[in-house]
């Protein structure tokens, strides 16, 4: 996969300095990403979203990102200027956030938001961009794209909002998409459709995908490889299909905590945390 590596991350740290000292949100994370689907799983606070944001240069002050190496398609990402990040984000790498409610502009029609994203990266006529935005809405399986184009974010359901977000992020055809819990707000049947859209983009266009999620069944069935994060560290890396045979006690405990439809049990196991895992 050497020639095909999109992203390389070596020893990534993200620290936040606050009143109570330094919070080490991400600690020594290393991985390489090809044109594949890489899952990052973990609980809230495990540093999975922060890792995704650090790759896009989206860690706000007072957060400090440091890495021995972080490069995207051979280009060094450490110490990029704001202007250089601007060129990078959107057209080459992009991120779908968790919550469409906070990520869409509430006073702008959603179609126009997609159109704006497209025209930021492609010189084209208003008409053409509009067609493109509607085609994108259609691609994320929105039933009546012409009508949804005219709506404001508050007029969308959570699932629709999320699909609009995905449409907006994909309209500029990035090579790397970081999707942070993109399907958590969606219904299970729609979830599969959205995953299929992402899947097609990886297989047809050779996009790299980092799929951040707390949902282990989805990650293990959808991704190629999985990183399991705990306390800011990667505690396990394995092929997605092998997640059920995970080695780390934390991963095993997480898997056991899921209420299974097929194998019911009276009492669910809870995760007892070993301080050792933090070292």
């Amino acid at each position, binding site marked *: 996969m050497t020639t095909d590596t999109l992203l390389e991350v070596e020893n990534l740290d993200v620290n936040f300095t606050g009143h109570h000292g330094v919070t080490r949100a991400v600690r020594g994370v290393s991985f390489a990403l090809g044109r594949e689907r890489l899952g990052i799983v973990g609980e809230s606070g495990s540093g999975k979203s922060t890792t995704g944001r650090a790759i896009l240069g989206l860690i706000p002050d007072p957060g400090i990102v440091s890495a021995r190496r972080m490069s995207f398609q051979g280009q060094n990402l450490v110490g990029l200027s704001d202007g250089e990040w601007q060129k990078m984000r959107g057209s080459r790498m992009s991120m779908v956030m968790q919550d469409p409610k906070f990520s869409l502009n509430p006073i702008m029609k959603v179609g126009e938001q997609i159109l704006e994203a497209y025209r930021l990266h492609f010189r084209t006529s208003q008409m053409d961009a509009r067609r493109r935005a509607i085609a994108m809405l259609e691609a994320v399986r929105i039933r009546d794209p012409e009508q949804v184009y005219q709506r404001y974010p508050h007029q969308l359901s959570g699932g629709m909002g999320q699909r609009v977000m995905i449409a907006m992020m994909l309209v500029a055809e990035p090579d790397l998409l970081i999707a942070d819990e993109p399907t958590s707000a969606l219904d299970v049947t729609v979830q599969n459709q959205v995953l299929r859209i992402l899947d097609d983009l990886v297989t047809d266009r050779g996009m790299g995908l980092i799929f951040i999620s707390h949902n282990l069944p989805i990650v293990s069935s959808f991704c190629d490889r999985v990183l399991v994060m705990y306390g800011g560290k990667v505690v396990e890396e394995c092929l997605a299909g092998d997640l059920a045979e995970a080695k780390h006690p934390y991963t095993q405990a997480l898997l056991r*905590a899921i209420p299974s439809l097929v194998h019911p049990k009276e009492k669910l196991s809870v995760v007892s945390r070993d301080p050792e895992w933090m070292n």
Partner: protein
Amino acid sequence: MDELIQVDHLSVVFRNGGRMVKAVDDVSFEVQHGETFGIVGESGSGKSTILKAIVGLVKPENPSLLIDSKPLGNERTKSDRKMMQFVFQDPYGSLHPRQTIDDILREPLLIHGSQNIDDQVREALLSVGLELIHRFRYPHQLSGGQRQRVAIARALMLKPRILLLDEPTSALDVSIQAEILNLLVRLRENYGFTGILVSHDLGVVAHLCSQIAIMQHGRLVEIVTSEALRSGVVTTEYTRELLVASRGYSR
């Protein structure tokens, strides 16, 4: 008969200007004493609206709700409210940010003029697995799982006969979800409440419920037992779709 809650041809219509949305369309089911009944469906399928109609937060089109075979009125009386309590999905939004946990747990007792309020608040905290040190904290000082425990404790303060649970664990991590589900199972044994659980997660619903209604576009598609759901013996295409989707991604 032994049913505590009867939903008999319930319809809820939202009117917005000239538009009419039939959120719940002619839904009927019964919940037995002590049972936890599950409702599964996608967002917008009307599952939460059924709960809201039962507690009186939205008005049904016609009188269609019976408790102990007696019809519920248009407005909920004080004793109706004491009988049924609600746990919401979002533990971040459902607790008053400027009230301490003590204030939050005390309020239902004050409204209903209970005695020994201090003892009851302490007992409630402990019964949901919180500690006394949490009593005078504010919601923002607690984790999501702890807040949901507070919401559950508040709902149980009045020892309601009916507990309505609207996606009580969907905002929580799986490890925390496991703790809350275990807590609900234990509390159900101790308090013996009758419940309706709304969720989009088949695993969660099957864990707590024996009978499960599947909803789509405001209509009740079918009612299945959790065993039937487990073995895949379902009659409608839609339920089958939900089952396939619950196993994760499939091409």
